[in-house]
């Protein structure tokens, strides 16, 4: 039995099954959804450390080294992404058990949620450009619906903006794919890579521009970021956590990096473009985040800034830079999900997200406060929490690549991030009690459980850099990306 297609098939099946049986019974939906995401997480854990495997759909194996069917590729980066996606989605479904009680149709929520997970798993696994586009759209469309899930004016407006800009992104990507197909006569990523082989004609460069801006839109890199601060805060908190935690990374950054590094191959110019885009996002994102008064908008802008760090690391193109970027990617997935879940807990307990009405929640909500402090310190890069290590290695990688200016920006933005998060902690949890404070209560068990689990991960994830974990998890992923065009030979078995 092949495990690779199951990563897509299981959530896809569950997405249709849950609304059929769980319509009248919300607890049954909870159970089924949690079992599904747990199973996916365990499956992802079970493939860690495996060598590259290729699954040809329908048994259509390549003839004479020329692919004729669609393939799914499970290599180091895919495993890395699968672990990240399934880990966060599992913890988020636990959180949803109680949080989503206040919404009416839980079964539909889980259906859309699992559809999104299926799409992301597909993006992480696929070895085919058009297939990538299909999974990208599954993820996007599910997330458009989830952003509007509350059905209020604000949610609908945000979702509309998200749809419009998301469609622009999809169009750009599709255009890029179409041109690539016209140029090379193939959609298989490995084969396209062997045909282009770092040998660029102007039309290829134009395609690259399309891919960078298309995936950049999905990843919310500045100046393509404008949809995110509206869309992420409007969604229910578990979905905000998914969107900021994994969606923008999978359909934005992962797809971008995969196409740029493995299909086209990195050139000094594209490397420099990524460095600059990353730095601009980092700086603009954190500055915007410092001025927000809505806790979820605050977190959304901060995501833009952190995405900048990840792109900066990838842009260096060195082994250390890529490994550090991947490290920051998974760390950011953990702490940003945690922080969005914290914001959800605050909203759940007080009914508001406005800094001016919050404050002094520390004694009323000790678990939320402690976990939020851990998450904030982690994102701000306070040792020994996970964010410290990934930022440290991104900065070291910048210095090592002699990109001193970018290293200085990374350090400087770290200071601003710290200032921004301390402001959030002060306005929400410490400081003078606000008007929403007297009515606040600590949140129910399932929400606490998932926040505590994520906070614990923030504390221990620095260990991923320990030699053994690094060898089995991070380095195989970084190697696939760094070795760039050898991807083709490992997939096609040449």
């Amino acid at each position, binding site marked *: 039995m092949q495990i690779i297609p199951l990563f897509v098939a299981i959530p896809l099946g569950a997405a249709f099954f849950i609304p059929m049986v769980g319509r009248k019974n919300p607890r049954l939906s909870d159970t089924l959804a949690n079992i599904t995401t747990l199973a996916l997480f365990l499956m992802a854990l079970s493939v860690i450390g495996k060598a590259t495997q290729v699954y040809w759909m329908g048994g259509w194996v390549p003839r004479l080294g020329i692919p004729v069917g669609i393939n799914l590729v499970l290599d180091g980066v895919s495993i890395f992404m699968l672990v990240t996606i399934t880990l966060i989605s599992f913890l988020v479904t636990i959180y949803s058990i109680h949080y989503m009680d206040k919404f009416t149709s839980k079964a539909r929520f889980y259906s859309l949620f699992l559809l999104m997970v299926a799409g992301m798993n597909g993006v992480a696994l696929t070895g085919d450009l058009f297939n990538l586009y299909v999974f990208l759209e599954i993820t996007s469309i599910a997330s458009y619906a989830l952003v509007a899930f509350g059905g209020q004016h604000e949610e609908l407006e945000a979702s509309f903006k998200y749809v419009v*800009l998301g469609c622009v992104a999809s169009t750009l990507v599709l255009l890029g794919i179409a041109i690539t197909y016209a140029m090379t006569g193939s959609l298989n990523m490995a084969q396209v890579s062997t045909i282009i082989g770092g040998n660029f004609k102007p039309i290829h460069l134009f395609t690259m521009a399309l891919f960078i801006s298309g995936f950049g839109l999905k990843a919310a890199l500045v100046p393509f970021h404008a949809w995110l601060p509206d869309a992420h805060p409007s969604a229910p908190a578990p979905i905000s956590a998914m969107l900021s935690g994994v969606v923008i990374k999978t359909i934005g950054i992962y797809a971008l990096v995969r196409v740029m590094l493995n299909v086209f191959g990195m050139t000094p110019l594209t490397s420099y*473009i990524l460095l600059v885009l990353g730095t601009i996002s980092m700086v603009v994102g954190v*500055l*915007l985040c410092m001025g927000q008064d809505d806790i979820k908008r605050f977190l959304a802008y901060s995501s833009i800034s952190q995405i900048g760090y990840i792109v900066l690391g990838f842009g260096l193109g060195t082994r250390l830079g890529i490994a550090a970027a991947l490290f920051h990617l998974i760390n950011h997935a953990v702490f940003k999900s945690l922080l969005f879940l914290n914001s959800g807990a605050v909203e759940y307990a007080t009914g508001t997200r406005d800094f001016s009405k919050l404050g002094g929640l520390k004694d009323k909500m000790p678990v939320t406060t402690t976990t939020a402090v851990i998450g904030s*310190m982690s994102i701000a890069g306070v040792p020994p929490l996970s964010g410290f290590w990934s930022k*440290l290695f991104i900065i070291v990688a910048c210095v090592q690549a002699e990109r001193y200016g970018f290293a200085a920006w990374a350090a400087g933005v770290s200071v601003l991030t710290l200032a921004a998060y301390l402001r959030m902690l002060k306005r929400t949890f410490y400081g003078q009690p606000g008007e929403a404070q007297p009515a606040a209560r600590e949140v129910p068990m399932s929400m606490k459980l998932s926040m505590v689990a994520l906070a614990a991960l923030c504390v221990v994830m620095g260990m991923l850099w320990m030699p053994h974990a690094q060898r089995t998890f991070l380095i195989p992923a970084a190697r696939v990306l760094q070795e760039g065009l050898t991807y083709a030979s490992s997939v096609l078995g040449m």
Partner: protein
Amino acid sequence: MDLVGYTILIPLAAGAIVRLVPDAFKGLKEGIALVVSALTFYFTIALFREGFVESGYFGKMLFRMDTLSSFVLLFIGFFGLVMVLYSLGFMRGKGNLKEYYSYWLLTLGGACGAVLANDMILFVTFWGFLGFTLYMLVMTGGPKAAGAAKKTMVIVGGTDALLVLAVAIVWVMTGSTSLTQESIPTVTGLSAFAFILFACAAFAKAGAMPFHSWIPDAAEHAPTSVVAYLPASVDKLLGIYLLARISLYLFNLTPGMQLLVLIVGAFTIIAAVMMALVQHDLKRLLSYHAVSQVGYMVLGVATLNPIGVAGGLFHMVNHAIYKGCLFLCAGSVEKEEGTTDLDSLGGLARYMPITFVTCLLAALAISGIPPLNGFVSKWMVYQGIIEMGRGGGYLWVLWLVAAMFGSALTLASFMKVLHAVFLGIRERKAGGDPKEVGLAMAIPMIVLATLCLAFGIFAFSIPLSGFILPAINGISWLSVPDVSQWLGWWSPGMATLFIVAGVGIGLIIYLAGRLKGTRTSSMYVGGEILEPEVRVTGTDFYTTVSDMGFFSTMYRWAEARTFDTYDIGRSISFYFIKGFRAAHTGILPEYLTWTLAGLLVLVLILLR
């Protein structure tokens, strides 16, 4: 696991455990804190006696203790115990005790770790973690402390980010992460930049200008015992330890870099003491002195000659002792009177004699009055500056003047404190007279005051030959074989004798006068007979200074926080934030335009 591991891990583990202790067990938190601090102090003594320790884990030499770190470690252990003892009395009955003792112990473990670390990454880990525990400890002061805690963490934690960059540069440049590797010359731009980043972190932790502004704010709102423990003693030890480590070991300073550090030192002394003169709150006043005194340590280390460096290091220890003592006295006053506002205090000497005497000794020590410890170390710093002046140039006069003038102003400022708090007349208040503090609070003050005396009178036999000279001799290019002329022509034993004799003669004259009976008359000012209720609080002693033309402008600006690095940074950030926020109108077509513009730029760049 060896002694190094125990010293670091036991307090850290105890800190984590205290956080989980249920509130039902009364006294357990305090008990754990006291026992673990005592144990840690014992470990630090044991390590100090070993002199040189190396300890490797995972095949790396992660920890190394040499003569420089051993005495710093000893004093961290010492202050940990003394201040915990004080906290037992001071914090009794206050909320947040669980967090308080938990972060306290974590701080103790982290500080030991930072001093023992040889690996730079490990050092940064402990160092940054200390910033976080400091933040949480300031936060135990309640909702009002939230602003001060945030400012503290932005400055201290922000410079940690710079430290990370510095470590990255040194690591890539030399290929090693050892803090005790060969000296790197600061001749290239990159290594000079790395040195400056390291120095920023050291200055922020120790509280030298321009990274000092968190100390007065934290001192005002955090529990006084926290201020006595961290900004007044342990953070000073750590900050100056790092400065000494980078200036004497890691980097080889060029004259330009040395000048930079000297400027910071001299400027800190004068500017901070000027601010201290005009404060109306005892804790804020003390905290400005805590900033000002850092200048002496920085000057001492930056002289880069044996006597100056020894003076700087000695001053670091002395300062931790007397400033710790002064803050503890302020805490005692606060506990009894409920305020530290100089305007409403006064006349406490007769109610709180122990606090008065210990405070007097510490105040004289910080003002550099012989034969107390502060005098000896300041004296050595002066000698170091003069020694440096023999190398030529005229700037050294400037440093010397700054140091001596700063000392005089310190004395002036403490005259004001002693008068306003302990002398004069106590304002009539409801609720009975203040009492002397309990034993748990009194012992730490007495111990520290005694050390002020002992380290002054027996300066050469205890501290200097005990740990300062070994630390200097541990640095090959700094060591001097002949230590006989180290103290210049200052002989503490003889001087003490003279001073005691002088005081004795004064006493005899006073008593002789008393025998005859003195004439008393009522106070008479400007033709009016003053009622006994009219008090002279002492806060107005130096308003002449602040009313002078130039100074009044400077003071006005300082009050408006024009010079505060934190506020300058904040206004610059918010200037940009306003612009960016205005650009985000929420109008969809505009966002689409940005997207297309971005695509266009990308196409142009890629296809040019």
